[in-house]
Structures are given as C-alpha cells and as structure tokens.
C-alpha cells in the first residue's frame, strides 16, 4: 500500500518567514521555464473547458 496523501502544509519559523518573503515578490523566484509553462498554459486554458 502506498503512502497516504498528506493534506495541508503548515510553515513555521524560518520556513514561514521564507514563504512570506516569497509571497511579497514571487516573480523574483520564477524561472524562464516556469514563465514559459504558464504562458503555454494560459493559451491552452483559454480554449479548454472543465
């Protein structure tokens, strides 16, 4: 049997501080491949229905 899926991520201390800093300017941490993936996804999402 596989490991159960864990839900909810709780960040404390320095991990929480890092997350807060990240959320202040997430694009600073983005990558060319990440931006390209979002660009392609946005194009496809316009043409897709759930």
């Amino acid at each position, binding site marked *: 049997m596989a490991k159960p899926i864990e839900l909810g991520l709780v960040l404390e201390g320095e991990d929480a501080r890092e997350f807060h800093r990240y*959320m202040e300017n997430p694009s600073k941490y*983005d990558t060319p491949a990440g931006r390209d993936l979002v660009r392609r996804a946005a194009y496809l*999402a316009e043409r897709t229905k759930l």
Partner: protein
Amino acid sequence: MNIPFEDMDFEILHSGSNLSIFKCNEPDLYDFLTGDALSSQTKRLSVTRLAMYNDHVVGFFTLVNDCIEAKAIEESDGEPGYLYQKYPAIKIARLATHDDYRDRDVGTNMLLKILVITLRLSGYVGCRIMTVDSKPGAVGFYQKFGFKIALRNYKDTVPMYKDYHSSLMGMCSDISQLSQFQS
C-alpha cells in the same frame, strides 16, 4: 525524441484503464497507481489522470485540494513582521512517468496539463498556489519550473510550492484579461 504536448491525451483513471504496461522504478508511485488511486478517486479524495501516448499509459498524475498555512512572524528580531496567512492551493499528490518514456518531456507535458486544469479551476474556486510532495530525485525538475522547497527539514518527500498567479499577472497587462479563465 520528445513527445509534443499535442500528441498526448489525458484521461481520468477508471475501472477499465489498462495499467498493465506501466512501469515505474518508484515503488510508492507504482503501488499508488495500481492499488490505491481508483479507490481514493471513488471516495472523491483525489483525481488521477493518465497521460496517454499512442494508446499507452506513459505517465499519471493525481490532484487534490490543499492549503498552505504560514504562521505569523514577530517583529522582535528586527525584520518586518508578517501576519498569519492561509492560501488555497492545488496539490500534485503524485506524478510519475513510465520508465521507458523518461527524458521525452512527458513530465513537462503533465505539468503543463496540471497548470491548464489549475487555471480553469481558478475561475470557479480560489486556488492561488501549486504544491507538490516531490520525490528527492525530482526536486530539480520542479525547481526548473520555479517551485520552491517549503521545509528545511523533510522526511521521504520534499514539500514544494509555486505561486503561478504572479507569473500570470506578469503576462496580463490588465486585470480584465484574467477574466478569460472565468466562465
């Protein structure tokens, strides 16, 4: 040779799905797909999609709703304080590529499909962050796409997150363009 996204199909796992040819060197991922995924889906605890190429299962991913909870930070150490925050998220609970189809962009194509689903979903319910529990060997793959390691101390999987919204905002010149994902 890489497999283009357009040449792949994605179908939701069902009782008639043929998983017999699927091979994966990560026992936990293989066991989940062949033993737990359908049961979990039937209980509406997760949804698994199969990545298909030439009618073969070349990968799969499983999605669930998630939440990131960041505790408040005090100003006492001289840095700016931060309020307690929670963000709704979508979690990549499992993602695996068939051993024989590694290094052919199957993982990237699955991540693209997940992002498309997330963008569509975000037009219906709040969903700001993508999270994943990565196998240690896959951390570099997610980092390439801008995921950040969430915990300094982790066990057998590495929790990671990405705010896809900020990338999207950088592309849309005004907020009205974001409404195109809302139905």
